[in-house]
C-alpha cells in the first residue's frame, strides 16, 4: 500500500460517511412511507414522487426555477458591466476586485439581515420617506418576491462577476483594438468580439448563481417571510414541522436533479463547447 493511499484515506472516509451516505439515505427515504411519529417505515412506494405532481408543489418548484432564473438574469445584467469595468481598470484591477468581493466575505446571515433592517416597515427606507413626507404609511417593501429577488441578487452578484472578470481579463487587449481599427464601434466590439469570447465565463457565472439561488433557503425565509416559499423552504418544512421525511427526501432529490440539469445544460451550451 503506497503512501498516497494514506493521504487520501481521511478525506475518502469523511466524504463517504458524511456526504455520500447521507445522500444515499435521502434516496432510500424518498421511496419509503412516512412513519406515524415522523421517521420512515416500509413499504417501498413512489408516492412521495407522485405527490410532487400536485399543482401546489409544482407551483413551488416552478416558482423556485423562475426566481433563480430571474436572479441569474439580473446578476448577469448587473454583473457583466462591472466585470468589464474591473478588467479594464488597469493597475487598480485588484483593488476593485477586492472591493467587490469584500461584502461577499462578510457573513451571509448578516448581509441578509442588513436588507431586513433597510426594508422593513420601520426600516431605513420607510423611515426616511416618512420623515420627508413622501409617504404616510410604510411601503410594503419586505416579505414579497421583490425583496427575495433583491436579497438573492445582492448575495450572489460576486459569483457572477468573478468568473466573467477572469474570462475578460484573459482576453488580449489588442483584440478590442483590432475590432475598433476595423471599424467597429464600442457596442459592436462588445457584441461581436468581447461577448462571444467571454461566453464560457458568462456560462460559468450563470451556473454559479443559478444553482445556489434555486436551492436557497435563508433568503426567502427571512426576506420572503413565509409568503415566498421556495423549494428549499419546502424541504426544511418537511424535515422539521411537517415531519414528512419521505416527501422531503423526494423533493431534495428533485432539487438536486434540476440543479444537475442546469449545470449540464450550461456546460453543454455551444458557447462553452467551443472553448473546451
Amino acid at each position, binding site marked *: 500500500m503506497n503512501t498516497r493511499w494514506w493521504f487520501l484515506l481521511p478525506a475518502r472516509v469523511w*466524504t463517504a460517511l*458524511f456526504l455520500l451516505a447521507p445522500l444515499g439515505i435521502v434516496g432510500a427515504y424518498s421511496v419509503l412511507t412516512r412513519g406515524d411519529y415522523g421517521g420512515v417505515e416500509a413499504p417501498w412506494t413512489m408516492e412521495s414522487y407522485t405527490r410532487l405532481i400536485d399543482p401546489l408543489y409544482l407551483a413551488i418548484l416552478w416558482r423556485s426555477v423562475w426566481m433563480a432564473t430571474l436572479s441569474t438574469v439580473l446578476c448577469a445584467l448587473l454583473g457583466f458591466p462591472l466585470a468589464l469595468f474591473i478588467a479594464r481598470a488597469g493597475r487598480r484591477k485588484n483593488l476593485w476586485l477586492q472591493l467587490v468581493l469584500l461584502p461577499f*466575505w462578510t457573513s*451571509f446571515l*448578516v448581509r441578509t439581515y442588513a436588507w431586513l433592517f433597510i426594508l422593513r416597515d420601520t426600516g431605513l427606507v420607510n423611515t426616511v420617506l416618512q420623515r420627508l413626507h413622501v409617504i404616510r404609511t410604510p411601503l410594503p417593501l419586505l416579505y414579497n418576491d421583490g425583496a427575495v429577488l433583491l436579497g438573492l441578487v445582492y448575495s450572489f452578484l460576486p459569483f457572477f462577476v468573478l468568473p466573467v472578470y477572469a474570462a475578460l481579463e484573459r482576453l488580449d487587449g489588442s483584440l478590442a483594438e483590432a475590432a475598433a481599427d476595423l471599424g467597429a464601434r464600442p457596442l459592436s466590439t462588445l457584441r461581436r468580439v468581447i461577448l462571444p469570447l467571454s461566453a464560457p465565463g458568462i456560462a460559468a457565472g450563470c451556473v454559479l448563481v443559478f444553482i445556489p439561488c434555486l436551492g436557497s433557503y435563508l433568503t426567502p425565509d427571512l426576506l420572503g417571510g413565509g409568503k415566498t416559499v421556495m423549494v428549499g423552504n419546502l424541504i426544511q418544512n418537511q*424535515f422539521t414541522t411537517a415531519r414528512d421525511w419521505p416527501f422531503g427526501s423526494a423533493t431534495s432529490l428533485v*432539487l438536486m436533479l434540476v*440543479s444537475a440539469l442546469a449545470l449540464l445544460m450550461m456546460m453543454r451550451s455551444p458557447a462553452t463547447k467551443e472553448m473546451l
Partner: protein
Amino acid sequence: MSRALSVYAAAALVFLHAPLVVLVLFSFNGGRFTVWEGFSLRWYQAAVSDPQLAEGLVNSLLIAVVAGVLSTVIGTLAAYGMWRRASPVLSGALYLSLVTPEIVTGVSLLALFQWAFRFLHLQLGLYTVVIAHVAFSIAYVTIVVSSRLRSYDRTLEEAAMDLGATEWGAFRRVTLPSIAPAVAAAGLLALVVSFDDYVITSLVAGVDSQTLPMVIYAMARRGVSPVVNAVSALIVVAFGAVIVVAERLQKR
C-alpha cells in the same frame, strides 16, 4: 462609453457596500428605531452582556476551531494526494458537495444522524455540527491548497527523495513548509465558512447547542433589535480582518 462604465461601477460598489455600512452606522445609534438619536455604545454593551449571545459565540468559536483544524488537515492531505495522482472519485465527491444545496446537505445529514441514533445511544449536539462543518469545508480547503500545489515544482520533492527522504519525510520537510501559507489561508477560510453557517447548523445542532448565527437568526425573526446590528458590525469587522490575513497568506 468608458465614463458611463465608471459611473456604473461606482454605483454598483455603493449597492454592494451601502447595506453593510448603514447597518454598522446604526449600531452606534442611541435610539431603538431607525432615526439617528446620537452616538452611543449601549447596543454593544447590551450585546456583550447578553448571555445567549455569549453562549452562542463560545459554541460557534469552539465549532469553528475544531472543524477548521480537522478540515484543514483532511483537506490538505487530500489535495496533496490528488496532486500526486488524480483521484476522479474523490474530486467528483468534493465537487458534488459544492453544488449540493445547503438545505439538502443539512437534511441529509440530519437523516443520517437520526438513522444512526437508532443504534447508538446518542443525540444531536455540538459534535454533530462539527462533523457536518468538516464535511462541507473539506472541498474549500482542497481547492485552495490544490491551486497552490499547481504552481509547486515537483522536482523539489524528487530532489528530497534523491537525498534519502521517504515519501512522508519529503512531504513533511519539503512540500508542507513551502505550501504552509496556502494551508493557513485555507484553514482561515474553513474557519469563516464554519462560523458563518446557519442553514446546515440549524438542522443538525442539538437543543442545547445554539450557535451565534442561530441566536442572531432567532433575534432577527423576533423583530429587529439594534443589538443584532452591533453583533453584525462586530462580525463584519472580524470577518474582514480574517479574510485580509488569508489573502495576504495566499499571495505569499
